């Protein structure tokens, strides 16, 4: 190999030359460049390219395996800034599992590199490894951002890039980068004015420059164009710092980056600084250094302050609010727009003007379906409608930029719609949005009379359905006739597009159709008349509907004009709510299904062939009428089948799951302690009971329906889980096994719980004609129902009906009980409630 001493550097060795020859030639060429003060970016890029050639040759010589493999340059080498004595950082990436053949290749590839005396920083990974983020190795992740394919399968590199470059990975790397930077700067007392600076690590040096570019790359590629320094000056600073660094490497003959006093003299001379005295040359070098370091430092600070923080796919949080990182990409992907509004809500900010104009500019190109093509997108729409702080502002922004009317064309029909009447003060669209604002404010109420409505709202499992109903409740006002019917018709199309579950769909449409009903009854009917309340409760059917309709009425009336909702009206509404709630939960035991009832007739007429009229009538007669409101006809038929041929001590059950919630239906014949035993068995399997109904008909047939979460995944992990549960239930019900025994270990853990609020126990003999009602509100805990009902049974009471509800941490249970067929006497009530109170306090 011949070396040229000319400024043009060495001749490239021929392909096929020995690796040593290629490497030596490359280094010699770089040395020459550095020696004449030209070891900047261009020289390092040339050197990196030469090393690429070397790697490719060694790769070929190592006979790569049949399965795909790629060699990636990382970090500074990836950026083509490989310095004279820098480590060569490589990633050897395999497309499939590393086998014997791959290991052979790895040795054949790495050994020649080691033989050259090169310090190789190598990592070996399979593509599948990138499915999970190596959070404990942020430096590696940062180096991967600069990954560049050097040799091997290009297609594998592309697959790696797809797997690696995700929004969440970028967000994690950015966070890590800022932390690493903080620590590194602290090591230099956070000042760039070091007398002996490290040209790689000091503040304002090369690593900061790379960090600036990385921040821009991860957040906004155009960021630096708007920065404090012209990009050309940043490039010049980089070239300068690289020239100093390569000179240091050449002089020190190792990977040495500290510009010490002694080396400052050598470097200033080699870089050709003018001056007769060393002192003057050094001063000029250092003044250049600080000038460039300051540019880097200012650019980095600018990037840190201005860069949007990635908070979702193509979505960043900036000082102006939520932005699209890449507007061109955003314009093509309307499904991501809703994500911008969700991000704004999640981060308590607004959507930036820039993003809003981008949406406004392109929104007309898309149809409603384009915004939620996938099930995930449809779920995202519902999530966006949760009544949390900021929802009104965001929906208003969506409306202003034309998005809301595109996502819900039905809503567009009432845009700026004026309906003249005596009461309304705003256009229909604004009235609608104000109802949602009022709900949002209700959710945030901490005191005053609004607090009671806040507690209703906080107990809703799916408040977003209420917001959806509010959004659509007046869309029918585009016409002048009965708008509730038209709104319901139009809303049916929306819920169809959103593919809501049947019960969600029914709920939303019910609320829209009847959104005026509760104000009519509360303000225009004599709600002190029990018959009015009874009829209203019968119409509403369930507590969930009641809660939502009550809130809907409140915020709808309030959105008519600032004066419409007086505290007087609020009071009337609250009273109707409480009376109806009490009716639904305490009085339903008095209204039983009887033979001549129209609803029973409907069930009989629609019955499948394998069920007889007699069978259905026998099952239903004497159950509360509410049963038919709670369960669909199909569910009723399933229950009737389950009750077939039931004998004493037998238990028939069915278990099924939907969306992570399990439902257990138990049919058996009544006996003392039955309810408590069933709850105990569920708890002994670790089941967390959320909702349920226990019903008893006059023939002693018991139907219990529980909805619960299987927090320990017992049913999921054990294919025969439900038959195990059945076995235990039968054993316990027939007194072959003792549930107390099964629960002992579990209860001990529960009883150590922390008191969240004091329990409420109240017995009432007036609400129902047949039963003593026991209302219990307590912190939810494993086995709670078991302990409550055990106490009730220990007092010799029969548990006929139970309503079980959970709102967050709160358990709300209503027991309908009798003793020897009659209501409890006052002393009996007192004894029972004080025992219950004690039990609940022990639980806490």
């Amino acid at each position, binding site marked *: 190999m011949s070396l040229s001493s000319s400024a043009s550097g060495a001749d490239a060795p021929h392909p096929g030359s020995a690796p040593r020859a290629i490497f030596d030639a490359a280094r010699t060429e770089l040395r020459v460049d550095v020696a004449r003060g030209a070891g900047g970016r261009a020289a390092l890029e040339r050197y990196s390219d030469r090393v690429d050639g070397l790697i490719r040759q060694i790769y070929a010589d190592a006979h790569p395996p049949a399965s795909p493999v790629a060699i990636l340059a990382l970090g500074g080498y990836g950026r083509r800034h490989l310095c004279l004595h820098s480590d060569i950082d490589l990633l050897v990436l395999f497309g499939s599992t590393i086998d014997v053949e791959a290991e052979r290749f790895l040795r054949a590839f790495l050994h020649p590199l080691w033989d050259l005396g090169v310090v190789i920083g190598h990592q070996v990974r399979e593509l599948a490894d990138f499915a999970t983020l190596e959070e404990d190795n942020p430096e590696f992740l940062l180096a991967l951002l600069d990954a560049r394919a050097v040799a091997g399968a290009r297609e594998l590199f592309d697959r790696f890039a797809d797997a690696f470059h995700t929004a969440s990975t970028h967000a994690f790397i950015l966070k890590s980068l800022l932390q690493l930077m903080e620590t590194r700067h602290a090591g230099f007392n956070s000042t760039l004015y070091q007398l002996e600076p490290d040209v790689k690590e000091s503040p304002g040096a090369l690593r900061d420059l790379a960090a600036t570019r990385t921040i821009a790359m991860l957040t906004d590629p155009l960021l630096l164009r708007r920065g404090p320094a012209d990009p050309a000056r940043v490039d010049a600073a980089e070239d300068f710092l690289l020239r100093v660094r390569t000179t240091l490497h050449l002089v020190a003959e190792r990977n040495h980056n500290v510009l010490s006093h002694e080396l400052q003299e050598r470097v200033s001379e080699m870089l050709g600084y003018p001056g007769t005295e060393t002192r003057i040359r050094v001063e000029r070098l250092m003044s250049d250094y600080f000038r460039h370091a300051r540019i880097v430092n200012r650019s980095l600070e600018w990037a840190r302050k201005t860069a949007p923080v990635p908070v979702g796919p193509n979505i960043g949080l900036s000082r102006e609010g939520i932005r699209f990182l890449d507007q061109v990409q955003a314009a093509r992907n309307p499904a991501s727009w809703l994500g911008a509004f969700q991000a704004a809500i999640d981060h308590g900010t607004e959507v930036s003007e820039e993003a809003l104009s981008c949406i406004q500019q392109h929104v007309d190109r898309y149809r409603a379906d384009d915004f939620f093509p996938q099930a995930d997108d449809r779920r995202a729409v519902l999530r966006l409608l949760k009544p949390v702080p900021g929802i009104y502002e965001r929906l208003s922004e969506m409306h202003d930029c034309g998005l809301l009317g595109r996502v819900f064309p039905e809503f567009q029909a009432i845009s700026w719609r004026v309906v003249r009447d005596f009461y309304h003060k705003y256009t229909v669209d604004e009235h609608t949005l104000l109802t949602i604002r009022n709900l949002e404010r209700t959710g945030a109420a901490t005191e005053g009379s609004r607090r009671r409505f806040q507690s209703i709202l906080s107990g809703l499992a799916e408040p977003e359905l209420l917001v959806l109903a509010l959004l659509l409740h007046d869309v029918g006002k585009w016409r002048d006739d009965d708008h509730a019917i038209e709104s319901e018709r139009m809303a049916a199309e929306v819920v169809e597009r959103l593919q809501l579950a049947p019960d969600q769909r029914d709920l939303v449409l019910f609320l829209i159709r009847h959104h005026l009903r509760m104000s009519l009854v509360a303000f225009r009917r*004599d709600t*002190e*008349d029990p018959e009015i309340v009874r009829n209203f409760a019968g119409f509403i059917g369930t507590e969930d509907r009641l809660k939502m309709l009550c809130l809907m009425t409140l915020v709808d009336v309030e959105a008519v004009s600032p004066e419409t909702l007086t505290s*007087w*009206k609020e*009071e009337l509404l609250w009273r109707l709510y409480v009376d109806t*709630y009490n009716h639904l939960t305490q009085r339903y035991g008095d209204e039983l299904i009887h033979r001549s009832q129209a609803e029973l007739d409907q069930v009989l007429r629609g019955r499948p062939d394998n069920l007889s009229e007699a069978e259905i009538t026998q099952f239903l007669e004497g159950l509360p009428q509410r049963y038919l409101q709670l369960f669909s006809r199909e569910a009723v038929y399933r229950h009737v089948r389950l009750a077939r041929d039931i004998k004493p001590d037998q238990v028939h059950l069915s278990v099924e799951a939907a969306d992570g919630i399990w439902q257990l239906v138990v049919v058996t014949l009544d006996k003392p302690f039955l309810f408590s035993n069933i709850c105990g068995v569920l708890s002994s399997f670790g089941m967390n009971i959320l909702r349920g109904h226990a019903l008893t008909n006059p023939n002693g047939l018991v139907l219990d329906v529980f909805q619960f979460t299987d927090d320990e995944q017992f049913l999921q992990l054990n294919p025969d889980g439900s038959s195990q549960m059945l076995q235990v239930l039968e054993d316990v019900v027939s007194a072959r096994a003792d549930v107390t025994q099964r629960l002992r270990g579990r209860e001990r853990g529960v009883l150590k719980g922390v008191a969240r609020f004091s329990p409420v126990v109240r017995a009432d003999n007036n609400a129902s004609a047949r039963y003593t009602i026991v*209302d*219990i*509100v307590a912190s939810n805990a494993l086995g709670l129902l078991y302990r409550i009902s055990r106490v009730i049974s220990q007092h010799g009471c029969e548990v006929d009906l139970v309503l079980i509800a959970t709102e967050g941490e709160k358990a709300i249970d209503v027991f309908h009980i009798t003793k020897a067929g009659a209501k409890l006497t006052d002393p009996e009530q007192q004894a029972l409630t004080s025992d219950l109170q004690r039990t609940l306090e022990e639980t806490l």
Partner: protein
Amino acid sequence: MKMLKAIIRPNKVDDVKDALAKLNIAGMTVTEVRGHGKQKGHTAIYRGKEYNVSLLPKMEVEVVVPENLAEDAIKAIIGAARTGEIGDGRVFVMPVSETYRIRTGEMEL
């Protein structure tokens, strides 16, 4: 002239208004008020907790009628607002010596 001040159930306002309209009494003032008379407040219970409801929502209807119509108007109000239960309300009758029309400043007899 007499001023009639009727405290009635909220849901009876429309009935009272219609009954007075039949007597050609058109002008009236309606106010949302709260209070209690014999129908003392009661205790509302929600989820086992008691809420004391001492003042009940009522409507107050005020009309000024000529002396010769006062008796019929009182009967009309009572007839329209009556349910027979406690809490139907009261009618107060007060003499009015003069009234003035603000727009013109003229006194009406």
